[in-house]
């Protein structure tokens, strides 16, 4: 606590300001009746067995301070009203437990009052941030995204060179040369995706998938090397930072003069856009309501944000018979679907990805109902927890998800876990490696592109990972 000698005042003023500014915060602190319908629904509690990971007790870490100093009963009766005085030990406890919440909102599905513990975590982290308690894995990417444009701080020329590598790989594996454009003014569409798709394995195969699809459609789109991060790391920091990073994407759309934005497979980018942007930044009036140039479909649902998720875009293409797909190329895969918290619970994206998936693979198996859709289990590493030093926490938090994957792996021989979130692609790979070896993680558009029949393509004997399809088919038959 030596860094901020007046840490106590900073936190107290911080709480007061936020109670005033966010009615949801006050409401969630006030109305919990603590009977614990949420208690056993958090993946961190289920995996760790530590009661302070019960959502109700996690929130109580902050609520108890609120109760003592900000409610009448608390001021009169102190600890008899369940209040606690804020001490350095409590700050440590906050740091430990609010960084064991991935803000996934699973608990809110079960709370009869709809209390969203994720919102309380967001506030607690914001408060901790005020006194300089933050984790490097979040704050460095935030700075990089703000100053350079993506979480690793890769400069524009290097960003382009890396995509050139991926284009070379596409050519090797499909026989087709593609030439996307960068920072092109006057393009119809700006394409934004989490930069993990560009830098990280296995996200890169999804990035190849996007470029293959756009080439197939001859889409008038551009990448941006300045807004080269779709993921909003500000979301894990503070509302103010989330707002700034969100506005950057739109500033770039304005600068380039595009009509609308197409977004890649990302989770928290979508949660920010759908849940917060409306009350955070100005409406994007300078853009047009997105309209697919291929099918003519107008995405009225995006009339305010002017941004379409690629799963939705592709589902519309398939529905309108615009894609020539050969599903059998994915026959070596037995796929199950992970509903990423932010896209499924956060924005109700349940059918679109499944619709696309069923059109590009023949073998699809759902996990048990209480582990998917609205009730999906978090990967265990979201909201900035995906640093390697958190691996133990991540693995226990990821256990309920992995346990359901293991079930379909044992029962149906599932060997592929599909998802539409860049963090998931990275972290579920680690989780599978530990809990269910033999299951690979793939983005939706990697699977789409492997099935997509391109004009002028080669024999397509390899997939986008450069693996021989015949070998994989054989392995799968054994």
């Amino acid at each position, binding site marked *: 606590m030596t860094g901020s000698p007046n840490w106590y005042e900073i936190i107290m003023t911080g709480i007061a300001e936020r109670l005033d500014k966010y009615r949801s915060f006050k409401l969630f602190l006030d109305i919990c009746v603590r009977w614990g319908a949420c*208690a*056993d629904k958090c993946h961190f*509690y*289920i*995996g*760790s*067995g*530590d*009661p302070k990971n019960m959502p109700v007790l996690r929130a109580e870490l902050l609520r108890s301070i609120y109760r003592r100093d900000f409610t009448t009963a608390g001021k009169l009766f102190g600890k008899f009203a369940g209040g606690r005085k804020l001490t350095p030990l409590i700050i440590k406890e906050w740091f430990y437990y609010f960084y064991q919440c991935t803000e996934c909102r699973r608990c809110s599905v079960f709370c009869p009052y709809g209390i969203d513990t994720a919102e309380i975590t967001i506030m607690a982290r914001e408060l901790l941030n005020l006194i300089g308690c933050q984790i490097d894995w979040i704050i460095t990417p935030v700075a990089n995204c703000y100053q350079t444009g993506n979480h*690793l701080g*890769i400069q524009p020329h*290097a960003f382009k*060179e*890396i995509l050139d*590598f*991926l284009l070379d790989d596409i050519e090797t594996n499909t026989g087709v040369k593609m030439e996307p454009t960068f920072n092109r003014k006057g393009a119809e569409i700006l394409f934004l995706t989490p930069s*993990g798709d*560009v*830098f*990280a*394995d*296995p996200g*890169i195969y999804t990035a190849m998938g996007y470029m293959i699809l756009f080439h197939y459609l001859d889409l008038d789109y551009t990448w941006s090397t300045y807004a080269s991060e779709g993921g909003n790391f500000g979301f894990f920091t503070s509302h103010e930072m989330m707002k700034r990073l969100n506005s950057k994407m739109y500033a770039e759309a304005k600068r380039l003069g595009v009509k609308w934005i197409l977004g890649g497979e990302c989770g928290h980018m979508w949660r920010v856009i759908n849940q917060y942007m409306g009350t955070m930044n100005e409406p994007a009036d300078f853009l047009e309501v997105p309209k697919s140039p291929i099918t003519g479909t107008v995405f009225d649902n995006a009339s305010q944000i002017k941004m379409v998720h690629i799963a939705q875009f592709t589902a519309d293409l398939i529905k309108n018979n615009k894609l020539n797909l050969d599903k059998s190329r994915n026959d070596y895969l037995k796929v199950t679907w992970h509903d990423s918290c932010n896209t499924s619970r956060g924005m109700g994206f349940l059918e679109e990805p499944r619709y696309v998936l069923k059109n590009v693979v023949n073998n699809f198996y759902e996990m*048990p109902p*209480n*582990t998917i859709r609205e009730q999906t289990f978090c990967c265990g590493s979201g909201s900035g927890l995906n640093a*390697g030093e958190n*691996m*133990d926490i991540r*693995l*226990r938090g990821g*256990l*309920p998800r992995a*346990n*359901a994957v293991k*079930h379909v792996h044992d029962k149906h021989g599932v060997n592929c876990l599909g998802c539409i979130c860049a963090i998931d692609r*990275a972290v579920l*790979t*680690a989780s599978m*490696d*530990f*809990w269910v070896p033999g299951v690979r993680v793939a983005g939706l558009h990697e699977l789409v592109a492997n099935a997509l029949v391109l004009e002028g393509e080669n024999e397509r004997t390899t997939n986008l990972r*450069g693996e021989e399809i015949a070998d994989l088919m054989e392995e799968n038959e054994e």
Partner: protein
Amino acid sequence: MALIDLLTKKKSVIVSRWFDAVLESYPQETATFMKSQKNRFANPVGCTLAKEVEDVYSALLKGSGDTEITPFLDNIVRIRAVQDFSASAAVSFVFLLKRVVRQELGKEIKQNDLTDELLAFESQVDKLALLSFDIYMSCREKIYEIRVNEARSNVHMLLRKAKLICDDPDSDSEVG
């Protein structure tokens, strides 16, 4: 009556006591949850522990070898290796079986003069503990391996750009 007959006859009570004893390593409210929630997707830890202590016990009675018993122990140890336990606490659940057997069968063992058989049985249990420790170590090693792999995967394209990994997928060799 031989010890094996007693162990077989009292199987369900011994297994259930052993499970309870294992749950004592968790806070009380968690133990209650792990015991009462029977849906294995809502309660993977409790359900796995319950199932696997029974599997291990049955395998012991059958005189199964290490290869057969390892997968059962693995399912338990893999979980405890990532929970907040020290190495000794993570594998201590094995020894609890000795305590339970002595508590449950102590009287009969004395009456039937089965002490030698008990000692033999207990050495079997000790062997399980050693096996569990090996599994624990391999889990921990796996975690470090995953951390290294992940650190590389996250910057895969940067390593490639910096020519620190090879472009040619047919070659495993790496420079740098």
